[in-house]
């Protein structure tokens, strides 16, 4: 299911990249950036950012478009509000997209997002609006999957699509993966030890049983011999009782 979101985006990204390669003038590129950031299904912008055509925008009056694209790739609604002076005004589509991207960023750090934090980040005032936003914009579009817990007022994220990565995030990911590998290696080792332990314990148990049985046999044999030797020394009437004991 995760791959579907990526696949849908792959087509859009290819389309936009082709368009950007074809255009050359700054205002057209700025318009393209506007279109890309308002598109309802596109959440990945690093391909567009790395296009050489867009670096031409830097330094011109349309540099703010480039900053906007960078904001959409890596930033959240909070970043926009703190820098709103230098960035162009956003259309309602873009605001919605930025909110979705902010949810993705929040989902990166914790799995359980309290409603209060979400309301603050997304600039919504009541729970109803927040839930509507989460359900309609985030879950139905497939970028997030999770459970809404109204009693404890939090949103449990089970899956969140990835945002564009900054280079240092790559190092973090590699570290996380190597930790995961280390843990699963040690787990495998422990499982093998447990298997060996189970086998050795059953061996010990069997040996113990066998020893016990041997001793019982020995004791039985010694009693029989004792009775046979005693038979000659007891009264004649008692032979019937000693015969029974031999069972």
């Amino acid at each position, binding site marked *: 299911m995760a791959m579907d979101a990526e696949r849908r985006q792959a087509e859009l990204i290819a389309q936009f990249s082709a368009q950007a390669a074809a255009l050359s003038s700054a205002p057209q590129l700025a318009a393209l950036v506007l279109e890309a950031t308002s598109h309802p299904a596109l959440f990945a912008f690093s391909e567009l950012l790395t296009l050489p055509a867009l670096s031409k925008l830097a330094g011109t009056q349309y540099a703010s478009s480039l900053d906007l694209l960078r904001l959409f790739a890596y930033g959240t609604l909070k970043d926009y509000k703190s820098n709103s002076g230098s960035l162009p005004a956003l259309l309602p589509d873009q605001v919605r997209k930025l909110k979705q991207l902010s949810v993705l960023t929040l989902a990166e750090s914790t799995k359980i997002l309290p409603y209060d934090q979400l309301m603050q980040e997304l600039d919504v005032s009541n729970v109803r609006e927040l839930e509507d936003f989460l359900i309609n914009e985030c879950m139905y579009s497939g970028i997030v999957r999770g459970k809404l817990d109204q009693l404890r007022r939090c949103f449990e994220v089970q899956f969140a699509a*990835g945002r564009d990565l900054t280079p240092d995030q790559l190092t973090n990911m*590699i570290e996380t993966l190597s930790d995961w590998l280390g843990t699963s290696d040690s787990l495998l080792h422990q499982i093998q030890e447990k298997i060996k332990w189970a*086998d050795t314990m059953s061996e010990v148990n069997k040996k113990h049983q066998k020893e016990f049985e041997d001793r019982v046999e020995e004791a039985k044999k010694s009693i029989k011999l004792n009775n046979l030797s005693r038979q000659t020394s007891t009264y004649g009437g008692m032979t019937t009782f000693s015969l029974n004991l031999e069972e």
Partner: protein
Amino acid sequence: MSAPSEAAPAVSAPAPATTAAASSGGFTFKLHPLVIVNVSDHHTRVKAQAACSGDSSSSSSAAGAGAAAGQPPRVFGCVIGVQRGRTVEIFNSFELVLDPVSGTLDRAFLEKKQELYKKVFPDFYVLGWYSTGSDVHDTDMQIHKALMDVNESPVYLLLNPTINLSQKDLPVTIYESELHVIDGSPQLIFVRSNYTIETVEAERISVDHVAHLKPSDGGSAATQLAAHLTGIHSAIKMLNSRVRVIHQYLVAMQKGDIPVDNSLLRQVSSLVRRLPAMESQKFQDDFLMEYNDTLLMTYLAMFTNCSSTMNELVEKINTSYERPTTRRGGRGAFM
């Protein structure tokens, strides 16, 4: 279309009738496990019957025991299923009688069987035929052509019954027939096709059941525990190797050996975000409760065992030391 005359050179020049590279037909084949089980069962039965009759009467059956001495006899049958557009889905199969002398199929039997299966499964058509062996035989093309009047492009399923422990894939190959121009004349040859295994829920359950065969008496507790742990071990090992591949890929990407693929990076980052997979207070509570319950039950069972053993011991002591007091005379030592 000069079909009979084509059959003659095919028999006399057998070499070109066998396989070539991968097929270009564009058909997608889906195979159900039932077919594989059927074919292998058919083969095993015939092999066992040949071996059994070989033991009882050595001389007469040596002639009739099939192709070559030491080789299990080949079995033949039909595969049936559904064809929707370019997707061919093979559901079931049944056995056929092959006349060993003339090398042709028993047509009447085939028709009868087809009719019977049509009544039970009205959607299924005869899609082709199967056989066993390690490679395509030269006579197979004849049988293939004979079936062409039932289905215009039949499939040929070959099962290799020799057990090869190092082989990872199933020893089943699917061949299609294509008209290729060889040595100036168009000839039908077999070309391999890829296939995927498709299961219905009932098939999945039975295959799962067979894969987890346990010793018939249930084994001791230790063997069951070992079997269970081994299953978990192999599952985790597979996950481990896959994650290792992703890790190496990312490291190479970071060093710059591989061009950066953003879409893949995004997917990996969303995967990494899913860890830890299970982390909430409620899970901890439930998990610890279940853990404590299991420990308690083990403790209780141990207790019950000990008390019953103690009880037996006490009874034995009572029985063995009471006798001297109730018996008149008793043993010499106690008098």
